[in-house]
């Protein structure tokens, strides 16, 4: 089989739709042959290799750095320290959160694994060898490891380089109506409270971060191949940092081996490689190893949450109040809309009609790597969703009610949309009860409850057998940031552009500002154009990632590609279609008003035989046809799409686990996931996205954590300790769907990529705790954690946290 248009392949399983529907991916042909092109595959003539020297201490003053030994290595071409960068004003880089972060440490190190020096050598192995030849003298300092001690009066100061700074406080931020919420709690029949930690985890894309930076001596341009989810935003940042104007910078994101939010930020290694290229005149490659990726690049979560839920005795929720302590590490480097320091956490009322809600989030510095917003979090919605889905279960536990019943009682009803929630979000559309009932039916909920009771009785009688747990999660997402007026990143409004050109032969090129990292954009965006223009998706070439070839935009994260770039692509295609109509009118010498669109052609109303196909129109538009004075030749359209609102996909998940009470071992027996992302452009790709996110849910709930010891040593800095689910931990997923289109999106489509990562962890945790009859224990629910929780002594996830 060859991977050309499967319609020419008689063995092909499914025909290619001219539009939406399941379609095999155009990307696959190169990847299954080992012909993808990832950053570390790039090999330029004369290319040098960089390696980073990192701090062994979480907190220490740098007394001296002696690079003499490394410079004497025969294959070393340069060694760069913070002092070198400082002379060029590049030792500190502005973050997307109005803070600065050290590129190479100049005064002290603030987390273990922090960048101290950058060696450039003729090959990869020599660069690593030379790291051992750099002599750094440290004066160790007491670290701040426990976020809950960060604001103590005697806490060591993480950011003492900032004049006048006397504490580790980053920000306070609140949303909702505090007075109304307090009143709701004062009047409540019942209040449940619970402390929940969403532990620090890491997106851990299988491909780590890397770059090849080169200066073209002829054109005097900086050409950067890099693992970036946001190439245009990176170009703007490089220009700001280096002083090179944007027209002399070209960023190319080639194939990216997964991003998951890890590849939004600009990392010190990138800047060091760029700087090294300028001083050596040679291309410089830097590829980090896994340990460096886990230790120093954007972590996710690390929210210490105190939740309070007010309700009537029969389980109707009347108020929700949350206090969050956010551990941001040593530099505030969250990649998120700048007016939202806690991201979109204030969607924490979730899928429920809760009249009164208030949250207050306090960010603190600690001696850990920066990050926070990553790993399919949709800007902190993972935390918000976990909070409310866990609190609903805690409420059900305390009131002795069935968690499905409590959800039924409180879910928003379809007729309430568009719905303005207590913290101000306007949900676009939803039919939550339908999704929940479908999920419960697929899971055979009543039968499961009966089996659970039977197994528990059996265990209590014999002390043997596995316990069954059933966990629910009925979550709401908010994706597609976003309206420029409210949302910007680093001052850049969050609109995205699309440009579509139809070639003379009727095939097309679509240029996008978003950047796939495996989400299938080359296929699905071609399907959008196919849907709008009635041509084959194989007739559409999708271009992304190269700032020389694509229009400006903010990239792919926050599940924003379909909501924003998808809308831009559809709109650009509609503009092409309208232009084609005018050309067709000129061709047929007829009024445009007499033409109607029919799958790939404009034809005369009432005389369908008279008309012109898109290819004929394209040929004419590029040819000698006389066009009206106000009509441009050729056939193209563009759109900068400024979304009017986010899209609000949702889902209902049921997780079924078996817990061995003797060992605490959890086996996920079933996972039923009903998702609704409105119109599905490619159901196959949507399902693959959900599968991946569900695996994330199992990983976070059961296995993954970045822990630290009291000295600030990173205890999860390799895959030996940072455990990811394999094929054995994941069940065969059981998916269902409903379709509730977004009323404001041109295609009715909502984002989906992060939904499962947002919704799944709570379902797994709820299931495990349901099995063992424990009110709450923090993730990850490892065998040790489950075993301890069953004995009434849940472990602290992180031993450094008191």
């Amino acid at each position: 089989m060859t991977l050309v248009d499967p319609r020419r392949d008689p063995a092909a399983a499914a025909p290619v739709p001219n539009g939406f529907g399941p379609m095999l991916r155009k990307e696959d042909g190169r990847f299954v042959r080992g012909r993808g092109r990832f950053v570390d595959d790039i090999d330029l003539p004369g290319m040098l290799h960089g390696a980073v020297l990192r701090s062994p201490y979480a907190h220490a003053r740098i007394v001296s750095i002696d690079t003499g030994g490394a410079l004497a290595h025969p294959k070393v071409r340069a060694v760069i320290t913070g002092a070198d960068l400082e002379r060029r004003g590049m030792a500190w880089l502005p973050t997307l959160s109005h803070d600065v972060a050290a590129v190479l440490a100049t005064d002290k190190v603030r987390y273990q694994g922090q960048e101290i020096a950058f060696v450039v050598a003729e090959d990869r192995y020599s660069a690593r060898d030379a790291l051992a030849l750099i002599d750094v003298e440290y004066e160790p300092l007491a670290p701040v490891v426990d976020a809950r001690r960060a604001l103590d009066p005697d806490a060591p100061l993480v950011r003492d380089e900032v004049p006048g700074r006397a504490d580790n406080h980053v920000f306070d931020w609140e949303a909702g109506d505090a007075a109304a919420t307090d009143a709701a709690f004062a009047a409540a029949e019942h209040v449940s409270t619970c402390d929940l930690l969403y532990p620090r985890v890491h997106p851990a894309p299988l491909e780590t971060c890397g770059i090849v930076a080169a200066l073209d001596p002829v054109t005097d341009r900086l050409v950067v191949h890099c693992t970036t989810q946001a190439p245009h935003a990176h170009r703007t940042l490089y220009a700001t940092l280096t002083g090179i104007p944007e027209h002399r910078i070209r960023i190319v994101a080639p194939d990216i081996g997964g991003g998951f939010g890890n590849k939004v930020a600009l990392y010190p290694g990138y800047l060091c490689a760029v700087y090294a290229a300028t001083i050596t005149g040679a291309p410089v490659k830097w590829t980090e190893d896994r340990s460096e990726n886990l230790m120093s690049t954007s972590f996710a979560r690390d929210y210490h949450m105190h939740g309070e839920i007010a309700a009537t005795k029969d389980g109707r929720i009347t108020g929700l109040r949350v206090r969050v302590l956010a551990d941001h590490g040593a530099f505030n480097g969250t990649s998120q809309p700048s007016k939202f320091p806690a991201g979109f956490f204030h969607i924490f009322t979730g899928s429920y009609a809760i009249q009164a809600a208030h949250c207050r989030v306090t960010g603190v510095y600690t001696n850990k790597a920066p990050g926070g917003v990553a790993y399919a979090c949709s800007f902190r919605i993972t935390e918000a969703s976990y909070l409310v889905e866990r609190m609903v279960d805690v409420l059900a536990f305390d009131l002795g009610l069935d968690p499905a019943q409590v959800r039924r009682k409180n879910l928003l009803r379809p007729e309430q949309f568009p719905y303005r929630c207590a913290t101000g979000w306007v949900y676009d559309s939803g039919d939550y009860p339908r999704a929940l009932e479908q999920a419960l039916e697929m899971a055979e909920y009543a039968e499961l409850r009966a089996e659970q009771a039977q197994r528990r009785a059996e265990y209590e009688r014999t002390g043997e057998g596995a316990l069954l747990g059933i966990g629910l999660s009925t979550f709401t997402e908010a994706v597609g940031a976003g309206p420029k007026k409210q949302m910007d990143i680093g001052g850049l409004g969050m609109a995205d552009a699309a440009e579509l050109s139809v070639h003379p032969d009727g095939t097309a090129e679509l240029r996008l500002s978003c950047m796939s990292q495996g989400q299938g954009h080359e296929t699905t965006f071609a399907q959008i154009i196919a849907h709008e223009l009635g041509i084959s998706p194989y007739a559409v070439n999708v271009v992304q990632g190269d700032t020389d070839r694509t229009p400006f935009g903010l990239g792919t994260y926050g599940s924003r590609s379909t909501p924003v770039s998808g809308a831009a692509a559809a709109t650009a295609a509609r503009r092409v279609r309208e232009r084609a109509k005018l050309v067709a009118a000129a061709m047929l010498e007829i009024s445009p008003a007499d033409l109607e669109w029919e799958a790939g052609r404009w034809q005369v109303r009432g005389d369908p035989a008279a008309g012109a196909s898109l290819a004929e129109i394209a040929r004419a538009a590029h040819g000698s046809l006389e066009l009206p004075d106000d009509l441009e030749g050729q056939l193209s359209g563009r759109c900068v799409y400024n979304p009017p609102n986010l899209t609000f996909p949702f889902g209902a998940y049921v997780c079924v686990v078996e817990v061995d009470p003797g060992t605490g071992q959890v086996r996920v027996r079933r996972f039923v996931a009903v998702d609704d992302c409105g119109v599905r452009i490619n159901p196959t790709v949507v399902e693959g996205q959900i599968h991946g996110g569900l695996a994330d849910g199992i990983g976070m709930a059961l296995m993954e954590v970045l822990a630290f010891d009291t000295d600030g040593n990173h205890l999860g800095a390799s895959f030996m300790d940072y455990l990811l689910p394999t094929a054995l931990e994941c069940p065969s997923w059981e998916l269902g769907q409903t379709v509730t289109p977004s009323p404001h999106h041109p295609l009715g489509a909502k984002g989906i990529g992060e939904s499962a990562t947002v919704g799944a962890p709570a379902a797994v945790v709820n299931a495990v705790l349901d099995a063992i009859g424990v009110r709450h224990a923090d993730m990850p629910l490892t065998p040790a954690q489950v075993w301890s929780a069953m004995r009434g002594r849940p472990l602290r996830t992180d031993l450094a946290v008191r």
Partner: protein
Amino acid sequence: MSFSKTVEITETSADTRRITVTVNGTPRVVEVEPRLLLVHLLREGLALRGTHIGCDTTNCGACTVLHDGNPIKSCTMLAVQADGHEITTVEGLGTPSELDPVQEGFHREHGLQCGFCTPGMMMAARALLDREPDPSEEDVRWALSGNLCRCTGYQNIVKAVLWAADKQRGAQPAEEDAR
């Protein structure tokens, strides 16, 4: 790391070794430092970049290749240890125009997204099908448990391998679920 990209080597220096490795059926004579990892020989010495590196502790399996037909993690073998052996990489799976059933299965069942784990995953699958032409789902999950994937949640990978097994045995591969 040091290696020669040509096979015309006349002199062996003290700190390198000359080895012959048969890669995808072609004997390759290369001069390598003893510490050079096989994965780097393949990727940088021989420009076979389908084999990837995803970790530094032998957990992820992105570098899986076949060593005399057995799946190994090429990040955890020295190039000199491959001297005299046969290595098969993803580039040796199928031909440029005809895909191996495993490759076809991954495409048809949407068993890949970013594509980074895919070559290693397919090599592990190839080794499974070579020793067990009719594996169960459980067999497949065990055989791939040394290969991490961050995108797919594994299910479509399992389907892909079962599809390939069916095709290879001449059975009618299961049609896609009617969606």
